[in-house]
Every structure is written in C-alpha cells, then in structure tokens.
C-alpha cells in the first residue's frame, strides 16, 4: 500500500460465529452469522453493505454464493483466493475501493464448518501437480519441510517450536472464546503423536468450525459508529510460490517484503508494535514470521520464543487470543488476526487485554508459506 492510503480506511465492526463446533450449520450459515455480528457491532444493516469481500474453501465462486445467500447486490465484489491470507489481503483492495468511492461500506467475511462437516481441511483446490504423487500430507508436510531446514541451518529445536504452542495455549486459557483451554506443557507437545517430522499433532493448528467478519468504512465517517475506530495504517503483500517445492528459500518467507512495506507505509517499526497477531498454522510459522517481520534476526526466532517470551507476561504479546493453535482454526485463519488486533486496539479483547494498545500487527499466511500479507492497524492516536 502506498503511503497516501495511510489512515484512509477504518475497521468499525468485527464479528465471529460458530467457534469450535457448530453442528447443523453450513459454511455459508456460519459466514452469514459472522457477517451479521460484525454489522451489529457497527450498528449497520446488511442493506448498507455495498462492498463484499469473501472467499470460502468449498466453491469456485464463493463471493457470489455469499452475496446471494445474504440477499445483497454489492457494487464491488472481491474474491481473490490467496488461501488463509485472503482476508488480510482484502484490506488493501477494500481501502482502495473505499478511497475511490467505489463503495461505502465493506464487509469482509468468511465461514467454515470443516470440523463438524468433514473433520479435516476442506479444499476445492487441485492437488499440486508436481508433488501429489509423493503423498506429502497437506498442509503439514510442507511446513515440516520448512521446519526441518530451519533446524538444520540455525539449530532451532523441537523444544523451541513446542514453546510456541505452549505460549498460544497460555493465552487461550484466558480467552473464553478459545476452543482448546486445557493445560499444555513443552513435554506434552514433544510427546504428542508425530505426524510429519519434526511436527507433532500439537505443533499443528486446530481443526474447528468458525467464521469471522470485519466492517470497513472511509475514515472520515469512522467516528460515527459505536466502537472506537481502528485505522488501517499500512497493508502489503508478496507471494513467492504455490507448491512448497518451489519455495525459493525454505527458511525465509515473503513476510520479509510484505512486512517491510507495511511498516514503511505505516511509518512505524517493529519496536513500536504493541501486539502481534500472526497466522500460526504450525509452530514454525510463528518463528519464521517473527524473524521475517523484523522482531528478531533471521535464525534467532527459536531462541526468541523460548522461556515464555511470547506468552502472557512475556516481552512481546503474540497471538493474544490463543491463535490458530489454540483458539480457532476453521481452515483460513487470517481474518482472526485482524479481529483480535482490532479488539486489542479497541480495548475489548475477549481474553487478556494488553494495556494501552495503539499499534497492532496482523499477519496472514496463505497456501504453504506461499502468500504473505501484513497489516498495521492503529488507534486514533496513531493518525
């Protein structure tokens, strides 16, 4: 995003639905409930929505399915599918569309019933043509290949990866909305069933139902809504590959570029950020993104997350809702990084609320470390 879009749009509503298990509901039911919750949060109605940004795992035209379901006729529709980063990615196009006057009220919305529907990751995408024959388990084997290389190059340990899961659980234990709130120790993670070395089932995100939504408007009217507005200060993306075998460097993601451009657009640096919300599909993600976004040096992510550094009471609050590892993961988690970042800035986080949050980072990951999108959000004080 160019600097000229800094602060031009704001999030004025968030909503979610179907966390954990939502038996009897379709993915579109959950999508709609999340959307209605976000609109209610902003005291808006479905009839106010003229910009719809949506993708789902089950269809090739999910945005049209969603508009039909909701009974709306949006004049701006965006459904670019970059996997779990899609909903962070939409923030850029939504800001552009709002700033250009192409629409006035944006609803970014997503829902999934993958847990009660099938119990595993649902996808409409074709298997990667040059990989499927080797039967990697998707997506975990892709992340395992990245984790193994990181361990080889930098000496990152399974214990350090386990600490990421333990920190996420510790945040989740304070969040009544989180799905997994039982005790979890480093030893539990290490002793859990190995799925694709070096990752155990406890290094993996949850498989839950759930939907999320945000409402965005132009900043000049952002104060007209009941909740404190949260401004988009910067949002940037970069993608490197689709198939994991084509990843240029297994230890460096495009978050390095998306992060650098998002920070530049916002005019802030990592040390200014009060809370960090990262797409933690697997424990290695958190390590990679903390490095690539500049919270620590490349190769030092393992040591950085050790000893509760990113847990409650640690030096850097990361994934304060419990993340995809312990709060919710319906297949594409990206929207929930934005929702939690927004609520932390507004001061109405469902779990542990960090004091005086002015700047939050929400980072989306899509595919197999393929698409990286970083958004910097800020309070009124940051404009």
């Amino acid at each position, binding site marked *: 995003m160019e600097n000229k879009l800094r602060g031009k749009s704001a999030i004025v509503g968030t909503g979610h639905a179907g966390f954990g298990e939502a038996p009897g509901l379709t993915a579109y039911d959950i999508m709609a409930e999340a959307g209605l919750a976000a609109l209610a949060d902003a005291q808006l109605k479905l009839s106010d929505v003229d910009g719809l940004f949506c993708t789902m795992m089950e269809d090739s035209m999910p945005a049209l399915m969603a508009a039909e379901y909701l009974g709306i006729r949006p004049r701006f529709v965006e459904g670019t599918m970059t996997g779990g980063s899609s909903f962070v990615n939409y923030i850029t196009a939504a800001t552009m569309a709002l700033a250009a006057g192409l629409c006035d009220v944006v609803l970014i919305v997503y829902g999934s019933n993958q847990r009660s529907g099938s119990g595993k990751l649902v996808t409409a995408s074709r298997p990667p043509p*040059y990989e499927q*024959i*080797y039967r990697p388990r998707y997506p975990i084997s892709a992340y395992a*290949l990245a984790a*193994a290389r990181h361990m080889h190059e930098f000496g990152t340990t399974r214990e350090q990866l386990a600490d990421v899961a333990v920190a996420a659980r510790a945040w989740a234990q304070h969040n009544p909305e989180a799905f997994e709130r039982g005790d979890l120790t480093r030893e539990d993670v290490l002793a859990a069933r190995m799925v*694709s070395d*070096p990752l155990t089932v406890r290094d993996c995100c949850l498989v839950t139902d759930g939907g999320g939504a945000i409402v965005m408007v132009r900043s000049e009217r952002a104060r007209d809504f009941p909740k404190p507005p949260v401004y988009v200060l910067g949002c940037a993306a970069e993608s490197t590959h689709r198939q994991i075998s084509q990843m240029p460097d*297994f230890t460096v993601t495009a978050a390095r570029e998306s992060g650098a451009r998002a920070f530049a657009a916002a005019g802030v640096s990592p040390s200014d950020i009060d809370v960090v919300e990262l797409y933690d599909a697997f424990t290695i993600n958190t390590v990679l993104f903390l490095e690539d976004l500049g919270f620590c040096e490349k190769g030092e992510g393992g040591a950085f997350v050790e000893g509760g550094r990113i847990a409650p009471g640690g030096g850097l609050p990361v994934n304060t809702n419990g993340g995809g590892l312990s709060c919710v993961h319906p297949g594409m988690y990206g929207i929930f990084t934005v929702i939690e970042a927004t609520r932390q800035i507004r001061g109405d986080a469902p779990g542990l609320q960090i004091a005086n949050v002015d700047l939050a980072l929400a980072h989306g990951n899509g595919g197999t470390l393929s698409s990286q999108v970083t958004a910097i959000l800020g309070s009124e004080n940051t404009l």
Partner: protein
Amino acid sequence: MVLPKCNACGRFHFFPRVVCPHCYATSFTSHEVSGKGEIHTTTVVRRPPDRGGDYNVCIVELEERVRMMSRIEGVAPPDVEIGMAVIAYAGEIDGTPAVLCRPEGG
C-alpha cells in the same frame, strides 16, 4: 533424465513450462542431466504399519540448481538427512512417472 535449459540465460528450471522463470525468455533446449544432487530438506510422513508404514518425502536439489519434491529409496525414512548426496532418477510410483532418489554410491 532431461531438464529444460533456457537458451537465453542458460539456467535450468523445474517444472517444465513455456516461459523461463528466471529471465522470462521462451526458448529452451532439453539437456540430459546426471541426477547428482543432495537432500535439501526432508520429512518422515507417519502412517500406521497396517496402512504401509512411515515413508519419506524430501526436496532434492540437483547440481543444476533446481529443486523438486522426491522420495529417497533404499534408506530407512528416519535415516534420511539434509545434505545427503543422492542420485535422482526417473522412476515410478504406482505406475505413474516420478523422480526418485537413491544415495550416491548406494
């Protein structure tokens, strides 16, 4: 085994396509390659013994500096190590052509 080599920049690529991913030229020649390479990264996919047991999935980097997914044969999955010297060869999995690897000298 053959790999496409760009006639403009001289670099190899995998998978085959109509445009060079390095320089965007569109003219290639197929070159016979030795298959010499090393394991760039690797994982053991766990599977119950009654469904076939654990197996290897790896990324091999050939000396032509291209990488691809593969499987190493003749080494127990937990013994496959990053940096291991291998020879990639054209084989098949369940009747479908696939690039497989064996340890160099093995």
